[in-house]
């Protein structure tokens, strides 16, 4: 336990010191500033536009942090051969990998907390600027959506952990994680499209089996996307929170467990 914690805190400190993080924060701040200007171009639902833009900024920044800083945190130890220093110590390989994963989770938590609080600012400004009486907005759901951005990033962290332990190169891990993110975001929509049959597309059974398989293999990131609900103050049932939470925990467990299995058998050059 102590070993996991020390690896996690070292990973976190290494990540937060990275200059890329400052760049990402500056981009996020600029996007927040732009939000207040852009919302004035809309007619009535301007709080919705503000919520869309600020929550997307939080999500996008978290994703950039994980993909450009998080992936490198794994690669560094291997590329610079510092991994020998670690594995010669009284710490198991599994502990090392789980620690790395929690380091990434802490990194994404920091980004989400910091930017999540800041993301309320453009919303407050646009809300004071104009609030249409038939618009619906609820701070509780807004912050729930922020929490779900963190949950999504935790799942992305587990995916990065998995690929970093499977591949020898951090660039390949980055590409695989990015592809997984894109597929995970779209499986639900593709599945719905095939199920609806409105578009009158001939779908062979093989394709629909493949889509079903992809739906179960890749994480369904749409489940963690509550931006629309936050933008329109739509209520979310406790069972939704329960099941999506459990789904995230199970997915993370599977991904990290497979990662540790692969990492234990791995030979270092």
């Amino acid at each position, binding site marked *: 336990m102590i070993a996991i914690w020390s690896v996690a805190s070292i990973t976190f400190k290494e990540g937060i010191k990275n200059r890329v993080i400052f760049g990402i924060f500056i981009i996020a701040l600029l996007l927040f500033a732009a939000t207040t200007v852009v919302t004035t171009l809309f007619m009535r639902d301007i709080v*919705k536009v503000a*919520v*869309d833009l600020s929550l*997307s900024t939080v*999500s996008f920044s978290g994703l950039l942090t994980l993909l450009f800083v998080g992936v490198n945190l794994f690669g560094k130890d291997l590329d610079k051969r510092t991994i020998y220093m670690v594995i010669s110590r009284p710490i198991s390989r599994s502990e090392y990998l789980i620690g790395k994963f929690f380091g990434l989770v802490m990194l994404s938590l920091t980004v989400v907390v910091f930017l999540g609080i800041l993301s309320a600012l453009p919303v407050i400004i646009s809300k004071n600027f104009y609030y249409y009486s038939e618009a619906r907005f609820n701070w509780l759901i807004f912050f729930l959506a922020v929490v779900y951005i963190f949950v999504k990033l935790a799942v992305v962290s587990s995916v990065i952990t998995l690929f970093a332990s499977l591949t020898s190169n951090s660039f390949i891990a980055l590409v695989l994680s990015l592809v997984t993110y894109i597929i995970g975001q779209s499986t639900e*929509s593709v599945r719905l499209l095939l199920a609806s049959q409105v*578009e009158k597309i001939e779908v062979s059974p093989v394709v629909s089996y493949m889509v079903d398989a992809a739906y179960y293999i890749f994480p369904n990131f749409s489940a963690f996307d509550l931006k*629309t609900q936050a933008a329109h103050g739509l209520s979310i049932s406790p069972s939704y929170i329960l099941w999506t939470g459990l789904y995230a925990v199970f997915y993370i467990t599977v991904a990290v467990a497979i990662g540790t299995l692969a990492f234990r058998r791995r030979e270092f050059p």
Partner: protein
Amino acid sequence: MRSLVISILLISFAVIGNVFALNAVSLEREKLRKEEGISLVMPSAVARIAALEFKGIFADIIFSRAMTYYGGKLIRKEEMTGEEWDWIYKNMALATDLDNYFLDPYYFGAMNLSWGANKVKEANALLEKAVKYRDWDWTIPFYLGFNHFYFLQDNEKASFYLMESAKREISGSLIATLAARLAYQGRRTENAVIFLEEILKKTDDNTIRNSYEMRLNTLKGIFFLEKAVAVYQDRFKKQTEGLDELVAKGIITAIPKDPYGGKFYIDKDGSIKTTSEMR
């Protein structure tokens, strides 16, 4: 020293050349845009997949692009063609497919398509979608009711949507009264009676209750007479001469009183009216 001078000269030459070229480029782009006109609209299913988790922003962009296009036309005082209105409609449909609850495309599309383009069918299609998703917003069924009343002269449908609107509205009494009046004019007196009874259950304000009750009693009287006229026509196979004949033939015992102080009569078109006109 010489190489520094050459570098500076080269850089300044390139900077000036860059500015000139960019000006020419923007002119060329302008020509290209004119020839391009309006572009194709992405199918909703594809857009939903391509937008990943940024569907909301995609909807914002698509909406504002169409709005800017329309605004540009308006500023240049150019007429919108039918094709361009279709494009506007498709964009609004796409934006609302990406975010089903987004008010602006519904509102912008419905207003401009009905008033500007005379495409009431498309405007109503957008509003019907909005009624389904924005199920708390009283303004949407109100606009839809208005379109049915004003553009399509369909009082029955208009009253249906106004009733829906009145059910959603938390305060105020105007829409409920209007809905009841339209239902009565659309020869749907029973609907008006049922609707007002339902609205009364939800109204606490005494002044508003009184005004509803007065209208409800009048409509009940009209509905009672309508039924009596139907019975008369069924029994004697001819039109009634007047309401007194219903009493004389024993179909009803007395003509109900109009709470507004008017008198009920049968109009030329056969409908029951009152001299007070419920005012």
